[in-house]
């Protein structure tokens, strides 16, 4: 069938109201919002929207194989571009399948607009076929959601949805549209800068607070920047401003898992990631500092360790766009509610204008160098077995000069990737931080590759995680997306096994990856390329082969099954109680065993 471009859509944002069906309004609103790609899966309750989509050009719809995949792909797209990701799914199972991805986006502050079909208005509440209370189910996992009851409210709601998803602290929103509303005609309004009745995020920093922050920084003897994903969400300019602030002050800097890339890993001020699997130097600097400057991070439990013992002698500055984060976990001596980029730029300006000088930091840096000297990421390599750390190192060395984007699944491989892959820029690292969703990385890679067709997009995966959303390989084939799925196959849910060793006497209850598929044959069955490496000697050659192939690749990298991820702060321990190896003891307290 030919596309018939007869859909009477309005020219973008002319301001003149036009009459459209609800389904057409959805497409028009997407166009007016500058959307070029959407991820979705059809079904009865969204057929009118799919029909409208069929009649227009300029919007690429990516047909996934499971709605969870659509949401993760949209997340990858969003996180790697800074634009909102858009998802279109049907009612009932379509909506419930999307819930994991939506929750993931909420936890990691990823801007998404999810559009769901709903049974026709007159059937709502009757247990109709494929009816579910989508707004009820997604209320706690969206920034806001709407059930559209009137076609004349639809365009305003959609524009509002984009505004709310992308401004303030970004997050997922959902618009549920009953099928009758999709057929009805009504007045379409283009996006206008209407002031929302109650939603007014604060983004400009209070000048007094910035001045105080600068004074505190200039007085600090043992300062550290603790940065996070908020800086990435603020846009690349924020990372630039941060570099300038580090240049001016000479302070050491660490980041959360979500913040990797905000500061170049090659710079001497970079301490590596902090937290449960962070570096010795980053965690000790956090523990011993006298000034903690938290920029766009939220004192997550993976970061703080035991809160009562967290950074006991520091004053804390906490910058966040979301006021509820300040004083939530630890008290801040100075809270700044603002966009990270704006606030950091202001700090740079004020520091320069007041011709501030840092305190002599020689002793502090000497201390940090001693910690660095512990080489907490070192590992014992092997001639016969591929150590997972070695595999990540080789992957990094062989791809670092390329235009590379990394996604991950969840587990040990994710932590090894975070510790060892070095990022020089923001938006290059896509991982499920807050929710820790196995199955995130493969569909996220689909979304990233779609947004960056020429780039090298690699999912550093675990053999267990990757089976959760493996079907999206088929999507990659359909859309010619040459993603590389680099599986650190240790035949275990390694992270679970590691915790069972630490907490449960080494009883490996259901953490062995039994009955694994042959990933090479599986790759071939999907129509992509399968590669396998079993010895360190052949690893480089196989990685180079993977890079050279311009098609999707499943790479089965057989690694040492028993390797564990260190360093580690055992649950319930403090930053300065971290362990470097299994020989370090790492007794977990009774209280710690309760933690996740």
């Amino acid at each position, binding site marked *: 069938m030919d596309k018939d471009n007869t859909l009477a859509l309005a020219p973008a944002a002319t301001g003149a109201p036009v009459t459209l069906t609800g389904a057409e309004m959805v497409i028009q609103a997407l166009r007016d919002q500058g959307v070029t790609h959407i991820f979705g899966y059809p079904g009865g309750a969204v057929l009118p929207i799919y029909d409208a989509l069929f009649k227009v050009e300029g919007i690429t719809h990516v047909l996934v194989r499971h709605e969870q995949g659509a949401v993760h792909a949209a997340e990858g797209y969003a996180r790697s571009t800074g634009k909102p990701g858009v998802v279109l799914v049907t009612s009932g199972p379509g909506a419930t399948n999307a819930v994991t991805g939506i929750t993931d986006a909420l936890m990691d502050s990823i801007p998404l607009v999810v559009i769901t079909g709903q049974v026709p208005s007159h059937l709502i509440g009757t247990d109709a076929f494929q009816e579910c209370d989508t*707004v*009820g189910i997604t*209320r*706690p996992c969206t*920034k*806001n*959601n709407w*059930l559209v*009851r009137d076609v004349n409210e639809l365009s305003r709601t959609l524009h509002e949805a984009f505004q*709310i998803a992308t401004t303030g602290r970004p997050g997922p929103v959902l618009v549920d549209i009953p099928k009758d509303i999709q057929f009805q005609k009504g007045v379409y309004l283009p996006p206008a800068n209407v002031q*929302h*009745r*109650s*939603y007014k995020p604060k983004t400009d920093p209070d000048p007094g607070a910035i001045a105080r922050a600068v004074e505190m920084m200039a007085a600090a003897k043992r300062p550290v920047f603790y940065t996070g994903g908020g800086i990435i969400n603020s846009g690349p300019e924020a990372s630039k401003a941060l570099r300038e602030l580090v240049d001016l002050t000479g302070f050491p800097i660490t980041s959360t898992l979500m913040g990797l890339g905000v500061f170049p890993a090659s710079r001497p001020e970079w301490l590596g990631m902090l937290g449960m699997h962070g570096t010795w130097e980053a965690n000790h600097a956090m523990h011993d500092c006298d000034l903690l400057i938290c920029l766009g991070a939220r004192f997550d439990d993976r970061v703080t360790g035991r809160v*009562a013992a967290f950074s006991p002698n520091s004053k804390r500055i906490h910058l966040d766009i*979301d*006021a*509820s984060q*300040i*004083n*939530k976990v*630890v*008290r801040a001596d100075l809270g700044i509610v603002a966009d990270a980029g704006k606030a950091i730029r202001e700090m740079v300006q004020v520091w320069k204008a007041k011709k501030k000088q840092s305190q002599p930091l020689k002793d502090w840096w000497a201390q940090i160098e001693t910690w660095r000297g512990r080489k907490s990421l070192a590992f014992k390599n092997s001639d016969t077995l591929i150590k997972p750390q070695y595999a990540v190192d080789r992957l990094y060395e062989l791809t670092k000069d390329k235009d590379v984007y990394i996604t991950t699944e969840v587990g040990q491989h994710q932590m090894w990737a975070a510790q060892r892959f070095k990022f020089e820029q923001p938006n290059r690292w896509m991982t499920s931080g807050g929710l820790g969703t196995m199955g995130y990385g493969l569909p996220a890679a689909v979304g990233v590759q779609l947004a960056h067709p020429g780039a090298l997009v690699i999912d550093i995966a675990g053999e267990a995680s990757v089976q959760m959303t493996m079907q999206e390989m088929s999507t990659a084939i359909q859309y010619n997306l040459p993603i590389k799925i680099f599986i650190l196959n240790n035949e275990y849910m390694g992270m679970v096994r590691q915790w069972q060793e630490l907490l449960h006497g080494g009883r490996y209850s259901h953490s062995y990856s039994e009955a694994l598929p042959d990933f090479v044959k599986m790759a071939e069955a999907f129509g992509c390329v399968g590669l396998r490496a079993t010895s360190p000697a052949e690893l480089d050659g196989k990685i180079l082969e993977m890079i050279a192939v311009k098609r999707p690749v499943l790479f089965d990298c057989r690694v040492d099954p028993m390797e564990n991820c260190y360093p580690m702060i055992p649950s319930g321990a403090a930053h300065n109680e971290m362990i470097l190896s299994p020989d370090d003891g790492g007794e977990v307290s009774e209280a710690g065993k309760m933690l996740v």
Partner: protein
Amino acid sequence: MNGEAVERHTITVLVNNEAGVLARVIGLFSGRGYNIESLTVAEVDPAARTSRITIVTSGTPAVIEQIEAQLNRVVPVRRVTNWTAEQAGIEREMALIKVAGTGEKRMEALRMADAFRARAVDTTHTSFVFEITGAPSKIDSFIELMRPLGLVDVSRTGVAAISRGPEAM
């Protein structure tokens, strides 16, 4: 932030009166494990389509601070006021209280109601329904006094709160 004393606070939330807004506010409390001791909600300005939700809650100062901050994040929330912390507000609650009995107990109930300025809004030979308005603590006391006198049923509205003086919330 442990070891702080639990305090009782009255918080008023002015919201856009749209579908799901109450569920959003209540879901926040249940989802994050905050207490709700009482809750009242009604539209207060049909022209502006605003409703006013008044919540009596309890928690440590840190928890109360989080409750306010979390409420402020909710998209259809316009304003949050913590009466207990920010300014002296007037708090009132209404209750309907049914007492059944005869003889001396019945007379005693009537005398008490009079002392509390409660009105009998339904009377039979064997029962009264009293309407009482006041601070929640006054209603608590009245209910306790009625208990040995044949208390049968209680219906309370929850707290409504407003500021003193000429200004709006």
